[in-house]
């Protein structure tokens, strides 16, 4: 309950943003639904795309989380030089453009990659990265680190007393798993599986580059193909409707399945020394394999691309310019929307819900809807860049709010009363109470938004024509045309730009003094 003297944070801008987001998400869905009516039922190929989408997302989630468990356990209980850096590296896939990772995986596992070179040397048949297993490989590359970080949080919440107890009572590995680790995992793993499943459900760029064909096409890819190759808007709309329904169903199921947080908290005494012997060897192996799996493809990108960086053709540099424009506009939009919604969400729920609407739809669903709306009115290609910036910002908004809102609510809960008794007005409260506590999470969120926008290959492919590509789209063209050297150089450029975008925005907004 707000008391009358508390300065009310402005709600008008938030209402405007919320209305815009509702229009963007549901308007797109309505357009899709209207257009899909005349498209008839789902064809056999559509059903197979639906099945493949769900199947690859489920397998990706199972593989990522199953592999993450031993890695998270090893990271939780071992201390070694470089541990902190490795945990930071586990966060890097958030800002790593999908196509850069795919380039790296191709350099290692692709037709002329290091693995096949090695297999050829010893006379073994080569392996192909294309198809289901290539898609799974890329999804595990992105989601193994995410799962490790989620599960690591579960391990961190195991009270150190329980570890001491297990040492003094003489638990062996199986008793420790049964009494201490399994109950923790039972709470953490469903959430991790759900998050990875949701992410992989809307996989587009990975499926575009490593999948395709009747046996490895996701719904998102099918939408794109209906657009690009058949220009069949009705079928694209129908597929977009299916994609949205699947995403919504998964989201509803998963929010219900999410379990409450563990409440046990210890006194943060140091944990007893971890077990040695075989378990030490297994832990070391898990850490080394995970680090290698993440680092080698990135090293491969750099090794192949650096020599070709300066010789990149002019269209790549032009695409870089367009990407920077899109990302700049996207970050500004994201900041404005996040600010308006955060201020209004201090005492209410609806702004948060409005900001999370994008979780329901996917970029290609929104893109399809917008295309259907715009097509009769204007040339979609002319609006490609503004629309990309808008969709990027809307897609990053749920993540930004998750970073910023808890800090804002905590600041309000901790200091709101103080601000009230001191009689701070709205502006003083923002400047003195909220902003100092928000700039770090805001810097992180906007940096993430910049990197996501710079690396995004999604809605742009529906709108842009030749000559209007962003850098990721240009990279995809080069890869598709087997211009290997230029593609390798462009991948390094994209990697550098995404990292720089994250760092620059985070520093600018978050300030250099991290603990201020």
């Amino acid at each position, binding site marked *: 309950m707000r008391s009358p003297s508390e300065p009310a944070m402005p709600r008008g801008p938030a209402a405007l943003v919320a209305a815009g987001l509702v229009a963007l998400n549901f308007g797109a869905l309505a357009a899709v639904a209207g257009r899909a009516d005349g498209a008839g039922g789902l064809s056999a190929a559509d059903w197979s795309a639906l099945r493949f989408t769900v199947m690859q997302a489920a397998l990706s989630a199972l593989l990522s989380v199953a592999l993450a468990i031993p890695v998270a356990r090893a990271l939780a209980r071992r201390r070694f030089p470089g541990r902190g850096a490795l945990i930071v590296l586990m966060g890097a896939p958030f800002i790593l453009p999908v196509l850069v990772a795919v380039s790296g995986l191709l350099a290692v596992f692709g037709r002329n990659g290091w693995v096949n070179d090695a297999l050829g040397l010893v006379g073994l048949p080569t392996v192909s990265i294309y198809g289901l297993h290539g898609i799974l490989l890329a999804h595990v590359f992105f989601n193994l680190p995410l799962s490790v970080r989620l599960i690591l949080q579960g391990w961190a919440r195991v009270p150190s007393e329980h570890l001491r107890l297990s*040492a003094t009572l003489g638990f062996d590995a199986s008793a420790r798993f049964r009494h201490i680790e399994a109950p923790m995992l039972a709470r953490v793993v469903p959430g991790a599986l759900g998050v990875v499943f949701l992410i992989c459900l809307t996989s587009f760029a990975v499926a575009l580059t490593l999948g395709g064909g009747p046996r490895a096409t996701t719904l998102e890819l099918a939408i794109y193909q209906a657009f690009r190759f058949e220009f069949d808007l009705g079928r694209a709309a129908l597929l977009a409707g299916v994609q949205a329904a699947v995403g919504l169903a998964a989201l509803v199921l998963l929010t219900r399945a999410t379990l409450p947080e563990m409440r046990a908290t210890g006194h943060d005494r140091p944990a007893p020394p971890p077990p040695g012997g075989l378990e030490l060897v297994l832990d070391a192996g898990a850490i080394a394999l995970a680090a290698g799996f993440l680092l080698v493809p990135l090293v491969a990108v750099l090794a192949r691309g650096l020599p070709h960086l300066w010789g990149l053709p002019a269209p790549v540099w032009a695409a870089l310019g367009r990407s920077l424009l899109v990302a700049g506009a996207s970050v500004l939009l994201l900041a404005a929307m996040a600010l308006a919604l955060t201020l209004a969400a201090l005492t209410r729920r609806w702004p948060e819900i409005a900001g999370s609407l994008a979780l329901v739809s996917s970029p290609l669903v929104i893109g399809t809807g917008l295309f259907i709306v715009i097509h009769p009115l204007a040339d979609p290609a002319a609006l490609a860049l503004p629309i990309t910036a808008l969709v990027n910002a809307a897609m990053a908004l749920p993540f930004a709010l998750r970073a910023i809102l808890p800090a804002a609510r905590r600041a309000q809960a901790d200091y709101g009363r103080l601000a009230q008794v001191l009689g701070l007005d709205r502006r003083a409260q923002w400047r003195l109470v909220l902003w100092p506590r928000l700039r770090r999470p805001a810097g992180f969120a906007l940096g993430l938004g910049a990197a996501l926008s710079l690396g995004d290959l999604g809605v742009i492919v529906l709108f842009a024509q030749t000559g209007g590509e962003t850098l990721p789209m240009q990279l995809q063209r080069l890869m598709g045309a087997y211009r290997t050297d230029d593609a390798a150089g462009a991948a390094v450029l994209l990697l550098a730009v995404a990292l720089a975008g994250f760092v620059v925005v985070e520093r600018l907004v978050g300030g250099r003094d991290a603990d201020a």
Partner: protein
Amino acid sequence: MLTLDGVVIAQDGFRLSADLSVEAGARVAVIGPSGAGKSTLLGALAGVVPLASGQIRWQGARIDTLPPARRPLSILFQDNNLLPHLSVFDNVALGIDPGLRLTSEQRAAVTTALAETGLEGLGGRKPATLSGGQISRAALARVLLRARPLILLDEPFAALGPALKNAMLDLVAQIARRHGATVLMISHDPADALRICPQTILVADGRAEAPADTAALLRDPPPALAAYLG
């Protein structure tokens, strides 16, 4: 006899040395300012905090080289002594077999330990449904069942009210007397020490002193203890 021979514990800037012995069957309070290293000292005895140097011996045999579970002791922490997802019965039974594969005699022993600590009929409950006193009793039932010659208490009753805490201290003394067990008990309250511990180890200024008579020590405290007692 428990002997700490030239023991040094060093952890990021923190250092504690101990050169002392405790008679078998003695009940000894461990008192000192917060952060002086009382918990660390008990942790080192239990084997969950490593020694920088020195030896720990029980009845003449080294125990500091043994893994925690093979040491002749039970330890109770301030909280989280019970696993929240296991029943009280299973939590106590962990003291016999961490795999929870119990023979019928062992199951009977668990039931007896529960009865002797006043938890008859509560074996099927989860810790979250117990009161603070009952949680302490369940942890003590496990100590009773394990019947190790050394009992280390890291303030397990700190959150209980005075009457309940006294009841628990008396239960500890009763369990210790039954097995002739040696007790080392961290406490913030001189009254706890006076109640069940004839002797006291003072931990202050990076040293754990040899046990001294509790009443005499509290009557005429050295400067570090005087400052702590206020």
